């Protein structure tokens, strides 16, 4: 399924500094673990939906 432009726009926020969807007050530690796992799962879901040609190889090369 191709992602819509709005979905891409929502997924395009840089996550290194600014993870999405959090409140101003820091959540408790156990909630933070859930926040992070949920963020990783959302990333995984987003990438799973992104269709690519079967021939696409990862962007690294092993050299013997």
């Amino acid at each position, binding site marked *: 399924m191709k992602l819509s432009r709005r979905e891409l726009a929502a997924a395009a926020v840089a996550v290194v500094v600014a993870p999405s969807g959090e409140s101003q007050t820091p959540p408790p530690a156990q909630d933070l673990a859930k926040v*992070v796992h949920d963020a990783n799962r959302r990333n995984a879901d987003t*990438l799973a939906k992104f269709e690519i040609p079967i021939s696409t190889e990862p962007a690294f090369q092993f050299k013997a």
Partner: protein
Amino acid sequence: MTDDVFFASVSDLNAGLKKHEYSCVELVRAFSERLATLGPRYNALALPLTEIAIRRAKLVDDEIKRERFRGPLQGVPFGAKDLLAVAGQVTSWGAKPYAAQVLDQTATVLTKLDKTGSVLIGKLAMVELAGGPSYRMANASLFGPGLNPWDRTRWSGGSSSGSGSAVAAGLVPFALGSETSGSILTPSAFCGVTGLRPTYGLVSRHGAMALAWTMDKIGPMCRSAEDCGLVLQAIAGGDSEDPGSAGKNFYYTPQYARKFSDLKAGFTAVDLEWAEPEMRPALDAAMQVIRGIGLQTVETKLPEFPYGALAGTVVSAEGSSIFEPLITSGKVDQLADARQIEGLKAGLEIPAKDYLKAMRIRSLVKKEFHRLFADVDVLVAPGRYGIAPKISEPLDGSGGRAAQGARPAAPGMTSLIPAGNLAGLPALSLPCVRGGEKRHHFRRHRAEPVRPGGRPIGGDR
């Protein structure tokens, strides 16, 4: 020697040394004292290296006296982000678990700079582990929150926080920072200095803490683009110790630069709508300057990919793998930022299929950017979309999205930082100054208060 030296360019300092206006020892002492005195004011200093630096400076003075000239960096003091190792000295990576770490090697970039005759006077503070998968608060550092020299209630940006502050405040003529996804560009933007993120593989990562093997770059943070060019020329080049090395050199040759009128700059008009309202006049003025120097500007758009999810997955998976011993030992809990701690732990659970999918999509990202650059020569965008956040506030949403009102329909270049890093592309962060663009704009910034981000509060320039 007047206080002007603290805001002088690399070339000017080198010229002053050759004319014997001051010696390298005098310069190193002056900057070292300033770094030691003012560095803590901005939480910028990780480790002073004054004694070693003065010994080195004496050797440099001997060479200059014998007219053995090495180049434009000879005799110029500098600072290095504390993820770059100096043999026998503490290299803390900005993190409590490594606060006493002493490594037995010196980073290749520091060895290269030493050969040019430039003098390392101190290690500069950073966000712990260069930010890891992500962090929430500005105080995510062994050294406390990086404070912006223009307004110490605001963040300097990170993860090269000390490098940004130190250059902006005239504590070092130039600094080395690093970027995985934003860590040179962000402090450069917030502190109003010029930061260069090189092409991936151009500068050796040997001796630098790794956060993400396939995305880490080391680059200069300086007072001008010219200074960045001179420093990059010195630190670039192949290194067999770095598996990611491209084996290429870089030569700073402005005399052969193409005319601005021959270059096309891609931009997106919607970027102004994403910026915080008070940033918009400055950004608009910057575009006028760009057009005024002759660059052709062309409306364009980034290739459509889920950049945030890609960068998040790659950095998290690679970073957690790198720091697996830290995580499994439990020492990860000593880190300052709770989100960083949980992020590193969670990164170990990212399945291989997710990482590999991200790396496969990344191949397509590279291909599409190649296509894009067949039509334009550069992309122009705001480095950040808002003014540096207050250090007391969570960093979520920093970068100035249009928080009030509806989000613009198109993303513009808002994901250019992760996109450019995923594609391994270089980037230059230039200070955004309203009004007349002057080479030595920092001289004015000393005399007049300037809002973080480089925009003056009042009066025309």
